[in-house]
């Protein structure tokens, strides 16, 4: 175990529920890479989109509380979910800029806001902290011949100055990570478009329309599969894919992997520990044809 590299892991609600395979594969991947991951004790929901939509003060306070809780664990905060990542970064950014909001939040959590800790998405930990070379050297089953459409969605990079993960309109970080595992990435049009996110509960028709455009673009680019780093993007593209195919009379059959699932497979974790069985669009035919499993 690399003692110098340990993270305070904030999984977020989805990873303990509908995105269990993202959690499982993240833990397995970090284990294989020899990097420490310690879950933040008693973390709360970050409030996600619904909280900031109607009550920004609540959203900022919930995130500030989580940042305070994360201080109990050594190391930077590691976040898997794009929405949690966005909210935690937004909170740091807003409270550093706005003295009034900071005072209100400190009153709400009855503690000083901890804003200097580093909050990192798994992608930047993999690409920058661990590094592409170390990642590539851990790969035992290279993903040769697999054509991957890397899907970023909204919150990993937007808006400027907040997540600071990569270029806001034309990022390459996910492609570089996937290529380090031996896969091929395709250029395509919809990697930064919105999938409809949490309208999946209130207005699924919106999701069907927006996610169809994304799947259609990925398919036309010649991709074998889509890779995501957000539980909501995954839910919309994987869980609703069959329904979308029915509505638009299309046949996509595109497996949608979490980035950590694909990397865990490449590092030899096997199907079970990578949580492949939880995917709705069957990924096994693809991985068998390419001789990876």
């Amino acid at each position, binding site marked *: 175990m690399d003692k110098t590299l340990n993270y305070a892991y904030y999984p977020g*609600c*989805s990873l*303990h*529920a*509908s*995105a*269990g395979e993202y959690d499982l594969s993240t833990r397995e991947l970090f284990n294989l890479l020899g990097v420490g991951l310690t879950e933040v004790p*008693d*973390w*709360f*929901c970050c*409030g*996600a*989109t*619904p*909280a*900031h*939509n*109607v*009550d*920004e*003060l*609540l959203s900022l*306070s*919930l995130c500030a*509380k989580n940042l305070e809780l994360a201080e109990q664990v050594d190391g930077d905060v590691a976040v898997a979910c794009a929405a949690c990542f966005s909210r935690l970064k937004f909170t740091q950014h*807003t409270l550093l*800029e*706005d003295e009034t*909001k900071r005072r*209100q939040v400190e*009153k*709400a*959590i*009855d503690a000083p806001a901890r804003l200097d800790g580093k909050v990192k998405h798994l992608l930047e930990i993999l690409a920058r902290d661990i590094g592409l070379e170390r990642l590539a050297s851990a790969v035992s089953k290279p993903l040769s011949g697999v054509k991957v459409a890397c899907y970023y969605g*909204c*919150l990993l990079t*937007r*808006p*400027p100055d907040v997540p600071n993960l990569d270029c*806001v*309109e034309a990022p390459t970080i996910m492609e570089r990570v996937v290529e380090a595992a031996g896969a091929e990435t395709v250029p395509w049009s919809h990697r930064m*478009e*919105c999938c*409809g*996110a*949490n*309208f999946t*509960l*209130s*207005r*699924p028709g*919106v999701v069907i329309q*927006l996610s169809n455009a994304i799947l259609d673009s990925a398919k036309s680019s010649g991709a074998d599969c889509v890779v995501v780093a957000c539980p909501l993007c995954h839910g919309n593209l994987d*869980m609703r894919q069959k*329904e979308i195919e029915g509505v638009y009379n299309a046949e996509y059959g595109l497996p949608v992997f979490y980035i950590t699932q694909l990397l865990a497979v490449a590092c030899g974790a096997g199907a079970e520990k990578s949580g492949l*069985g*939880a*995917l*709705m669009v069957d990924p096994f035919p693809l991985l068998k044809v390419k001789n990876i499993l």
Partner: protein
Amino acid sequence: MKKKKMIISSQTMELDVVRKVEALSGTSVRRCFQCGKCSAGCPMATFMEHPPNRIVRLLQLGQWQRILAGRSIWYCASCETCSTRCPNKVHLASIMDALRKLSWDAEGPSKESYVQLANRLFLENIRSYGRQYEMRLAAVFNVKSGQFLKDLMLGPKLISKGKLKMFHQKNRNMAEIEKIFSRIEEMRKKGEAL
């Protein structure tokens, strides 16, 4: 459109509403010069009766009640594309948050009730459990919106894949979360926060 002479002044602009939105959002409403880049990139504009640039224009013209009565603000996905592309650094996604808060506090003059219902259930879950409880979210939404059969076919599949948990996760430190909610309510009662 009726042809009617329009006079713009600080009264017709309803500057106090503009200032409130600016305080909540931390961005300028008045800086927008209507280039329309926000609406050009908005993935949700197709579902709105007023596209994003018009929302700002209505606000500049003191017609905020038309915004709150409509459904557009509830169809914003918070994708941040508008804020990213604005040449004048108007953070429109935050203006949308501020407008939704005004509508929310006025107890929903908008026609769009499903999105508001989903938000309400989501926030209730945080207060009751500290974390999300997806099964309750979906079940209560279907009952309260009267769509008993919505996603019915999906449910059993999700359960068999382990994606929909029957029981909720609960935070051990619920007293702490309740304090955050009640301190914010207290601040608002005393007029210390918007």
